[in-house]
């Protein structure tokens, strides 16, 4: 409206200036408006001001590396420190420009002796040794199906070792591995009487020592309360419900019935049963040995080092073809001596050269260094002892790097938008094209309106209850805590032995009902069970990106539906009528004459939706987010085929907003962590703000451009 000039107004007799109160009012209104803008600018300004230097210094590394935890170490001045060049470059990157007193930096190649060999099918290897091979050979991961306890195992005695065994163990050793025993064996007899004691019915005070000693015996006693962990000296009341007589060995006797101590049980009557125990002593001389597994188990108790799994046995390698592997020469030698059952061929020596850097530290200095680099540095200088640290502080996430969180957020947003757009467009189409006004549509609209007002943390609770803990999944190894397991079909491939061991699966071979299997598994403290059936198990998906994506999708649904519907409504009625008049069916006209023209609006809606979900923290806190994760989601997948896809989706991820929450609110703050927080926040803000700007721009753009 054009400004009115009062002088031209014939009704206005007197020319007055603007009254003071109007100036105030006007001033107040404009002040209010610009104050809001100013506040927002101050916040943006502060974050950009503090964050930009960090990003400039770190460069693109900030986005392309995973979150790093730096240690601040005080290193003592020294010469000739060696480190792999790669780690050296990292150290340079972690520290400010030229602050480090490095001198005489020279690169050289260091050679390490390695063995290359082919592992043949049918080899038998101890568990610890197999794990070492897997660590040294990237991409080699053995899924085994069989263990073996019969095969002999090897062990090394570093120096002469004296062994003392009781009779039963000694006899076992004698029968299983007579070669192992030297000629010279001495025996020693010790008188250790058994006791037959009678305890009268009654209520007694009992100490923890007495209690622990009595647990393995046959005595029936009932504790009035458990022993608290923080008060081990506490004396608790126990009830002996009837008079009993038990026979116990002397160790138990002295622990449980020592009259001088507090909290031991009084003895009604006692009788000593004389008993002698024989000890056999011999010396195992230095060298390599081979023996059956039970022998090693006995000797391991006497302090002989081994990496064999003594209860479950060795692993039978079930590879189809010989597999070429490498190991450091020392490890290879150890592998061969410890595993008589191993079959290898094509053994070859080779040297692996690595780029190393040697440098001097001209004075004591404070170095910021990544944990992994520090390990490498320590390892490389272990022998020479040249790198010494006088103090070390670890500052969580002080090294920046937000690759994991960015990837996690992107994955969550993708899953969320796929679900939300699919449902949202379908719902909007129904509401706008099919539905007639009535109770049904009214209640849908009401529900949507209410849904928009639900706090985001309540969506988090909902996602936790539904997706994390209740959603159904198809599996042959259901969780024992599953809400409902419905057996579908008696076909399921037996899980691999390794998976069984890693996941704690209870294998049931008997014919039992599901509930019996569940209680059997629980009694054995196993988390999952397998009985040859495929189940539909309502056990939830766990804390994973799928659950998080669905939760976010539910949250953003009202926004998506409303804006999709708006864009559908904007398509002129004539389009539909023309299409129908030409004989197209309802669906054909929607598909060809309505939806394509609503696409720009739907695009705007989805960008708006992405803006909303990318910034949300509360709904993903306990449905998807992991505070700490060292690898990217696809690096952890081990399964193949479709199972790999499922496994991929069922992982927890780091998400950028949750990462910021972790670094700003949950870990100790220090001068080293704060700049990195600003860097992360700046990147996060830029991403979200760019999306928000895009959605606002798109809306204005399409509104101006499309005119029917």
């Amino acid at each position, binding site marked *: 409206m054009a400004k009115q000039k009062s002088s031209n107004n014939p009704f206005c007799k007197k020319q007055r200036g603007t009254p003071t109160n109007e100036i105030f009012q*006007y001033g107040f209104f404009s002040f209010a408006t610009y104050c809001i803008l100013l506040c927002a600018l101050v916040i943006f300004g502060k974050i950009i001001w503090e964050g930009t230097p960090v990003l400039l210094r770190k460069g693109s590394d900030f986005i392309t590396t995973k979150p790093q935890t730096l240690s601040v170490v005080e290193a003592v001045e020294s010469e000739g420190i060696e480190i792999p060049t790669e780690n050296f470059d990292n150290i340079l990157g972690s520290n400010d420009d030229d602050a480090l007193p490095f001198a005489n930096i020279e690169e050289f190649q260091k050679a390490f002796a390695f063995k290359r060999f082919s592992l043949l099918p049918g080899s038998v290897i101890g568990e610890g040794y197999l794990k070492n091979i897997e660590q040294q050979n990237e991409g080699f991961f053995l899924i085994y199906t069989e263990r073996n306890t019969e095969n002999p195992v090897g062990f090394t005695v570093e120096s002469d070792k004296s062994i003392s065994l009781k009779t039963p163990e000694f006899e076992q050793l004698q029968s299983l591995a007579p070669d192992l025993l030297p000629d010279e064996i001495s025996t020693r007899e010790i008188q250790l009487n058994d006791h037959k004691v009678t305890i009268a019915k009654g209520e007694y005070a009992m100490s923890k020592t007495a209690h622990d000693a009595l647990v393995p015996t046959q005595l029936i006693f009932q504790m009035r309360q458990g022993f608290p962990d923080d008060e081990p000296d506490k004396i608790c009341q126990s009830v002996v419900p009837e008079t009993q007589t038990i026979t116990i060995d002397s160790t138990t006797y002295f622990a449980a019935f020592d009259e001088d101590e507090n909290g031991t049980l009084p003895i009604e009557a006692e009788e000593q049963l004389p008993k002698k125990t024989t000890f056999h002593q011999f010396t195992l001389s230095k060298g390599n040995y081979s023996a059956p597994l039970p022998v090693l188990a006995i000797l391991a108790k006497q302090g002989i080092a081994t990496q064999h799994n003594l209860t479950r046995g060795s692993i039978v390698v079930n590879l189809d073809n010989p597999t070429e592997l490498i190991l450091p020469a020392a490890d290879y030698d150890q592998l061969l001596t410890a595993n008589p059952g191993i079959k290898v061929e094509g053994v070859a020596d080779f040297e692996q050269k690595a780029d190393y850097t040697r440098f001097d530290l001209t004075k004591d200095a404070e170095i910021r260094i990544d944990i992994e680099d520090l390990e490498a540095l320590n390892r490389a200088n272990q022998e020479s002892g040249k790198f010494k640290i006088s103090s070390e502080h670890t500052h969580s996430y002080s090294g920046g790097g937000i690759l994991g969180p960015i990837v996690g957020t992107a994955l969550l947003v993708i899953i969320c938008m796929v679900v939300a757009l699919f449902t949202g467009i379908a719902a909007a189409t129904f509401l706008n094209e099919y539905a007639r006004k009535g109770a049904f549509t009214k209640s849908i609209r009401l529900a949507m309106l209410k849904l928009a007002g639900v706090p985001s943390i*309540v969506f988090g609770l909902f996602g936790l209850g539904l997706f994390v803990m209740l959603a159904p999944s198809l599996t042959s190894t259901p969780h024992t805590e599953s809400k409902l397991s419905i057996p579908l079909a008696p076909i399921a491939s037996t899980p691999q032995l390794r998976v069984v061991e890693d996941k704690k699966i209870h294998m049931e071979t008997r014919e039992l009902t599901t509930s019996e299997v569940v209680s059997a598994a629980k009694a054995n403290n196993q988390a999952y069970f397998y009985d040859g059936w495929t189940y539909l198990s309502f056990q939830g998906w766990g804390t994973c990106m799928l659950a998080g994506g669905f939760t976010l999708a539910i949250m953003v649904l009202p926004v998506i539906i409303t804006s999709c519907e708006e864009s559908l409504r904007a398509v002129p009625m004539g389009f539909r009528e023309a299409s129908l008049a030409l004989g197209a069916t309802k669906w054909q006209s929607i598909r060809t004459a309505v939806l394509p023209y609503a696409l720009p609006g739907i695009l705007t809606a989805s960008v708006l939706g992405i803006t909303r979900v990318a910034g949300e923290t509360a709904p993903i806190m306990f449905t998807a987010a992991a505070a700490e994760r060292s690898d990217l989601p696809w690096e952890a997948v081990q399964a193949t085929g479709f199972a790999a896809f499922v496994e991929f989706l069922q992982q927890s991820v780091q998400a950028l*907003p949750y990462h910021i929450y972790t670094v700003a609110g949950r870990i100790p703050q220090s001068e080293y962590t704060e700049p990195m927080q600003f860097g992360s926040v700046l990147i996060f803000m830029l991403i979200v703000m760019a999306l928000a700007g895009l959605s606002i721009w798109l809306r204005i753009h399409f509104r101006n451009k499309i005119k029917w």
Partner: protein
Amino acid sequence: MKKKKPKNNPFYSGSGFRILGIGKQEAIKYFFGGNATVAIIVMALIIGFLIYHSANFFPQYRSSLELYRKSGQEFVDYADEQLTAQKELKSLSTQARAYEIKERLGALYDVASVHSDFKAQVLAEISSERKNYKRVKSRLDNLKSSESPSADDLEEAEDDYQTARESLRDAAQIAVNNLDYSDLSDSLWATDNKYLDQIRNSIVENLLTGEKTNFLKEIETEEKKMTEQVDSLEFIQNLVQANQKFSQPIPAFERYVSSISKVASQNKAQAVNFVTAKARKEALEAKLAISSNEEEKERTRLEIKRILGTEPDYAKLNEPIYSSLDDYRKVAEDAMGNNKEAFALVPDVDEFQSKIARRKIDHISEIEETIDDLITTKREQMESWDHSVAYPITQAITGFFFGTKWITNSSWQDIYGILPLLTGSVAVAIIAVLIAIPFSVGGAIYVNRLATPAEQHIIKPFIEFIGAIPSIVLAFFGVVGLGTIIQEYSQSPWLSWIPGFPVEGRLTILNAGLLLALMSVPTIFTLCEDALNNVPKAYKEASLALGATKLQTVTKVILPSCASGIIAAVLLGFGRIIGETMVVLLVMGGRIAIPKSVTDPAHSMTGILAQEIGEVDEGSLHWGALFMVGLVLFVIALTLNYISQRILKKFTQHG
């Protein structure tokens, strides 16, 4: 539109598929319709889940509280509350004196701590030079103490020593000169620069000699003198005496409480053991039934026999507690007598110069009014206490909704009272809305009625843009920026009229409220603008035609006619804020207590959910309590939403 039968349609060629009489077109329709019902299903599921998980809470809480009563812990807590009040009196009077001394000493008070702060910073910077200096010095000392030092060596060492000393001095001087009060983490330091240079010199001297410098000694004596001076003031002496009176009964009271609490916790352990016995027995029996190993079965049978079957005799267990009443009376009388004398000695508020000290004294007089009542009611409760009285479920329910304590993971007794969380949430939302209303409503009026089109084109998208700032970014700003700003500026004297100023901590309700205000501005602004747009044009035209000015039209005609729309907008904004999580979680300080002023830290319903639910076992009492909180939050948010929608609907119909 009429339903078409494909058969009658001459253009319709294919028959398509038909299942159960449903053709392709209907199938598509039902599919879309099914997706639309997701909204209803989700709403129903949310309500269902909240109720399902919290349904068991009250019965569970009741039985937990019954054990709390049976074991005598309730009795102990009655006594403990009195002890806590007594201890608070003691600590308040101590604090009042300390703050007063601090205030009266001014900058002098902080010199020693600034000195050590600065020194630590300098030390970190010159560590290398210092080590070198020490090395050289020890070599020199070694040479001197050796029997026959060669003159050359000695001279060389002496030279080295001198250079090292010089370089250390230079480095320290440079480092110390770079320091300023602004480097201090503690911003309470009075900013006059009286002592700065002296502190700098003293640090360098101290570093070289390793001994206490004269300056420090002077400061110490002066501080001592000043403190004595303050202490010799009559009202401070009175305060000190009152403090002694307050603390006198505490040791005896403490002994009493700890003696009965030992008994009660023993009782509780036995009670819990008995309550859980049945479940353990059932688990073992189930294990026995499916186990196939004979040896294991034998073991399990024995374990079953070892499970306690008889209920503890609570009357006998609680005997020491009942008989302790006489001790209690003695202690309580002692405390009351001492308190009466002490309260008479507490000086008048006006005597104090420090504002914080005055606040503490005010707090003491608040307690003075209530403590006698507290002790008498608690005594009555203790005298009439009976462990065997059943705990009614209504009391568990009222205990939850009106309880002022939220204590979890405690080894004593978990208490779930929602009041501290609710007040925190509501307080922060009210502050935020109060701050946001003038800005957002004023802004909406300005943009909608007064601004030029160019301004409109910039401001409206910008405010929308503000609405897209993720809450975690605002929360982060609150932690690293706003908190410090508020704390620093609240120290300045010209702001001290605001209640609660100066602010003691960085993370407060006020801090969170300011951020949430900014967050709610876009919501309220947009809805207000809509409301303004909905006012019929005729109103404006009529008003202008009658000769009213533009602003008169806005304030007298347009605002009243869209008032209900604005109220609805504010209510919606309120509902938004009360459900916000990250800002209140990070910025509000996380202290679970009913806040007394806006500058206190507090906790909130959303915050407690975010913080605790990740660490709780499903189905436990704590789990149920958290879902109950979620349910309350949900109901509040929906009610607000409902009311504002109703107002909005009426308003649009009316307009």
